[in-house]
């Protein structure tokens, strides 16, 4: 396995399948009366959360404890804006405490990458969400959930709806699902799609209703409150009408299609309560699967040395390789 899990963009298909298969095995074991595995006894996993996220932190905490690891929850106050405790100083502290793995959530894109590559720490780094960049374990648990319901990824169509621009979940899902062979469609108003999205390995549509009938899974992204005042769309009502999933739209989905949401939901905004609580919704299952997938990730990163998900190569990058524009004389 690579030393770190920083993004799904650099996961190979074999890596991804290994994580999902391992998670499946772990889920089977978890169904037994004794849920705890001795695998990571004596190892220390630090949950380093610069942003509050009780659900993700708890999920990682349960995952690590079920593998018998020692868990330290380190809530660092101070975001990039407030200039509180710096990422570097925190990393040095954790290094001194002998952390084997650091699970990091941070508001700055690239924070996990920085932690892994800046030379501040020798721990394994798991990205638990960095700014608007990636949230790889969320995408892995989404893929895990889809595979269980849809039986695989080839020829399966997944529609991701909403604020792609600011969504780390969307980025991680697009890369991972494309790697696994699914066809992804992003459905969003043009203002909530990033510049350059046409080069992503997916289709893009401004029209949710056009995408719905062909969807095997539909994933509704959360619309954060600050976007509502940011001029990205006129009103909450108009957004809901054009891009929200209500019972009427859900009825147009194929019979076996599932409804997903990474949480936390804004009921009545991107998803109606009736849809969230319907039998097509796998939202609660996603939460349970999150523990299995995170156990698999920690297990593969920390147990055994050079085994598993690939090599370290390709991680380090020559920073000056790209200094000459292509085609230009030196």
């Amino acid at each position, binding site marked *: 396995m690579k030393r770190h899990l920083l993004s799904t*963009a650099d996961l190979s298909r074999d890596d991804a399948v290994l994580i999902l298969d391992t998670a499946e095995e772990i889920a089977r074991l978890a169904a037994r009366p004794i849920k705890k595995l001795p695998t990571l006894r004596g190892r220390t996993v630090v949950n380093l959360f610069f942003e509050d996220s009780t659900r993700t932190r708890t999920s990682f905490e349960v995952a690590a404890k079920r593998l018998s690891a020692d868990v330290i929850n380190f809530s660092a106050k101070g975001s*990039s*804006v407030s*200039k509180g405790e*710096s*990422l*570097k100083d925190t990393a040095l502290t954790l290094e001194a405490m002998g952390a084997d793995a650091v699970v990091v959530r*941070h*508001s*700055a*894109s*690239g*924070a996990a*990458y*920085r932690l892994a*590559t*800046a030379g501040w720490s020798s721990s394994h780094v798991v990205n638990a969400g*960095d*700014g*608007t*960049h*990636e949230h790889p374990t969320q995408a892995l648990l989404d893929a895990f959930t889809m595979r269980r319901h849809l039986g695989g990824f080839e020829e399966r169509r997944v529609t991701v709806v909403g604020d792609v621009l600011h969504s*780390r979940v969307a*980025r991680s899902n697009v890369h991972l699902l494309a790697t696994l062979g699914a066809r992804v469609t992003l459905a969003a108003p043009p203002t909530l799609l*990033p*510049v*350059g*999205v046409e*080069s*992503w390995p997916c289709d893009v549509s401004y029209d949710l209703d056009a995408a719905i009938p062909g969807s095997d899974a539909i994933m509704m992204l959360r619309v954060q409150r600050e976007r509502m005042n940011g001029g990205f769309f006129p009103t909450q009502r108009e957004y809901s009408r054009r891009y929200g999933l209500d019972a009427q739209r859900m009825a147009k989905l194929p019979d076996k299609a599932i409804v997903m949401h990474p949480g936390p939901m804004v009921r009545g905004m991107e998803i109606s309560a009736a849809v969230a609580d319907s039998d097509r919704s796998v939202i609660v299952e996603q939460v349970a699967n999150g523990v299995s997938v995170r156990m698999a990730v920690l297990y593969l990163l920390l147990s055994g040395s050079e085994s598993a998900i690939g090599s370290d190569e390709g991680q380090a*990058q020559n*920073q*000056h390789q*790209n*200094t*000459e*524009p*292509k*085609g*230009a*004389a*030196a």
Partner: protein
Amino acid sequence: MSTTYLIKNASVLGGDPQDLLLRDGIIADAGSLGPVPGTVVIDAGGLIALPGLVDLHTHLREPGREDAETVDTGTRAAALGGFTAVHAMANTDPVADTAGVVEQVWRLGREAGHCDVFPVGAVTVGLKGERLAELGAMADSAARVRVFSDDGKCVSDANLMRRALEYVKAFDGVVAQHAQEPRLTEGAQMNEGELSGLLGLAGWPAVAEEAIIARDILLAAHTKSRLHVCHVSTAGSVELIRWAKSKGHPVTAEVTPHHLILTEDLAKSYDPIYKVNPPLRSAADVQALREGLADGTIDAVATDHAPHPQEDKDCEWAAAAMGMLGLETALSVVQQTMVDSGLMGWADVADRMSVRPAAIGQVDDRHGRPLAIGEPANVVLVDPKAKRTVDRTALASLSQNTPYQGMELPGAVVATFLRGTATVLDGKLA
């Protein structure tokens, strides 16, 4: 009595070997000279002689951020880079928006003595973009300010920009605009494009620069006053300036060395050493900037030397300060991208790094002069065959935020003379 230097066999502006006699602050003789008693002879065979370089855009950080740079350390770096004059940007603390502050910076420059320091005055009080600073008082001060800029901030209010352009006509000043439409760049972290979308870093779109440049060109034409565009970074900006010049509008522009050599791909490392404003752009932009500089659309190379202490770069990207060092590597970057590539000759380098910036800064009575008898002895000797590997710990700047750490660059400044006095000899501070 000051030392007299006899420079032997220097290739003046890349031409045939010549001798230059530097005495009493001027070039006292030139040509093929015999032995001159009482002189220090410098064998300049294989070296290029250029007029001392002039930087239009330097952040010396004093007063206020002496932990990043001081006038003394910054001008040491300038001399080592071959500069005999720098224009010190106004975004200090306090802001250089009064005669008192600009005179302080000017005096600190004189005391340090490594190169001439010409303070830039703020356009608006406190760089706030609300009302004009006392531009006339700064122009009339001992610092004799002619370049006015809110650099770091854009004078985004169209009416205020119009008034600034009009007002500086009274003392033949120039408004140097940091072209960045603020509403289009809120929270911007890197060039907006495919890569910013993938990295999840908020985009700084080319249009935010180009929209301001287009507006300001029209304002300069309307007011018949001089506009200078700082650190042009996009292909579209080059096109706009090319158009303005074709119409005869009074517009000049500069490009930084880093925008001539580095591209946005470096942001993939999330290493904020590559975070700068305006951001590193695409390879196509770099190519357009090189062509614009070569054909004279862009008048000058200006470093935007922006020192920052380590803690402002040793962090996550969003938290990091914007800017990179430039004074000690500028000439090497220009050699690599423009001279060694065949786009420009050394005479063009002299034009873009000395003659034209001196004219824009209204210091061309003292700097950017021909290397001829009777002219001020502001001279730099460059070894174009030298190679060096950039070592951030060996720089004269107080800060170490060079993006070229570990890179091999061509060329080395061997000697710099300010009015006949060596500020650098054998590549070291004299």
